[in-house]
């Protein structure tokens, strides 16, 4: 039975089944958009946390580190309550739409982006900052130099966040509703089709999801390899 299911799964993949393609496309759209928003907010936040002296920085960083492990279903529940008719954002009518899924995944991705980018920025050798300062950089130019130096760490932080949201099912299932052709993505389809005993599509998507996550991890590894951390001290 398993072999049969695998055969059918591969034929689905190679025949470029339109339903399958639609699901894959939506997965990338939702997770990609969430990642984009999370990076647009998270990266400047990480830079400020890493470079500026601000009060209660430690608490905020610990909070972000804790939120890295937010259970997706809890985020789903929270976003659901906000977006449901009686919720404070209910008037927007976003529940069970791809937008709701993007919101939920942004919340999941943001702490990862902030935490990992922050730690990349603060691990930059202090001699980099001093070098740019002694060469006549303005405070802004010094910050740019430090952020540039942490670019591989920042990339791996963003890719780690992508890995997290691509594989996530709990939050988008709750707020997206898994509506065929509208809010059905790879992970939610796998959950549903497995329940129905319809393994071909589930396996086909499983293979694709694994391939995607393999690619993500290969990139991650590549960036981590290029990340060179020099330890630096006075004298």
């Amino acid at each position: 039975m398993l072999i049969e299911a695998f055969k059918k799964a591969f034929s689905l993949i190679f025949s470029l089944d339109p339903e399958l393609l639609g699901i894959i496309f939506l997965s990338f759209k939702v997770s990609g958009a969430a990642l984009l928003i999370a990076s647009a907010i998270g990266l400047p936040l990480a830079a400020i946390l890493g470079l500026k002296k601000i009060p209660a920085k430690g608490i905020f960083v610990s909070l972000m580190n804790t939120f890295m492990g937010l259970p997706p279903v809890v985020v789903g529940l929270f976003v659901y309550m906000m977006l449901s008719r009686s919720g404070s954002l209910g008037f927007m009518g976003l529940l069970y739409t791809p937008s709701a899924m993007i919101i939920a995944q942004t919340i999941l991705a943001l702490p990862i982006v902030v935490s990992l980018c922050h730690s990349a920025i603060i691990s930059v050798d202090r001699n980099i900052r001093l070098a740019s300062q002694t060469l006549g950089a303005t405070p802004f130019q010094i910050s740019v130099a430090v952020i540039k130096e942490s670019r591989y760490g920042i990339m791996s932080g963003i890719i780690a966040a992508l890995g997290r949201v691509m594989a996530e099912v709990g939050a988008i299932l709750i707020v997206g509703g898994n509506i065929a052709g509208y809010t059905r993505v790879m992970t939610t389809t796998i959950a549903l089709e497995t329940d129905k005993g319809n393994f071909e599509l589930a396996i086909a998507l499983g293979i694709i999801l694994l391939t995607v996550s393999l690619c993500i991890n290969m990139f991650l590894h590549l960036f981590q390899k290029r990340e060179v951390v020099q330890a630096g001290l006075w004298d």
Partner: protein
Amino acid sequence: MGLRLDVLSISKSYSGKAVLKDCSLSFDKAGVYVLMGQNGTGKSTFLRICSLLENPDSGEVNYLSGDNILIKDIGLRRRITLVLPKVGLFNTTVFNNAAYGMKIRGIKGRELKERIDSALNFVGLLHKKSQNALTLSSGEAQRLGIARALAIEPEILFLDEPTASVDEENTRIIEDIILNMKKERRSIIIITTHDGVQAGRLSDRLLLLDKGWIVER
């Protein structure tokens, strides 16, 4: 009018321990000043204070042009530079490292390329200009640090222990670089070292830092 540096009775201590005591000095002629002293005597502190990276606890560091004391703004900071013992190279090519100071001053195009090539040539690293700077040996890294500083044509150049963690061959190359700069007599160069022989070889003026006091030899 050339840039001069006046240090007026500066003192500095770290966690209660006095590192510099009432040090006064004038750097007013182009040439090589060597500040000698054992490790941990405060040479680097003196250089960091002079190069405006740190403030003294008391006393003054004044940069003068003619009789005017200059404001310590970015304009002045860009006329001087300090090369640290740990150079702090950026994770990019040798060329881009050397070009950093000019790029942040908005210099680009042919002038940038020519000046960087000539600075890299001066320290013998032109053939490695496309290589990643983090693959350089510590001696080459130090030479790149010097090239990066020379590219911005500083009027006062501080070199903090330029040969401290460098092999013999690179020490010789770096000393030659300094002697060449000395010949050109374009700027004030202030070097720290703990090596007395080296100090003798390089200096126009030899200064000794001992127990927080600076004396001229």
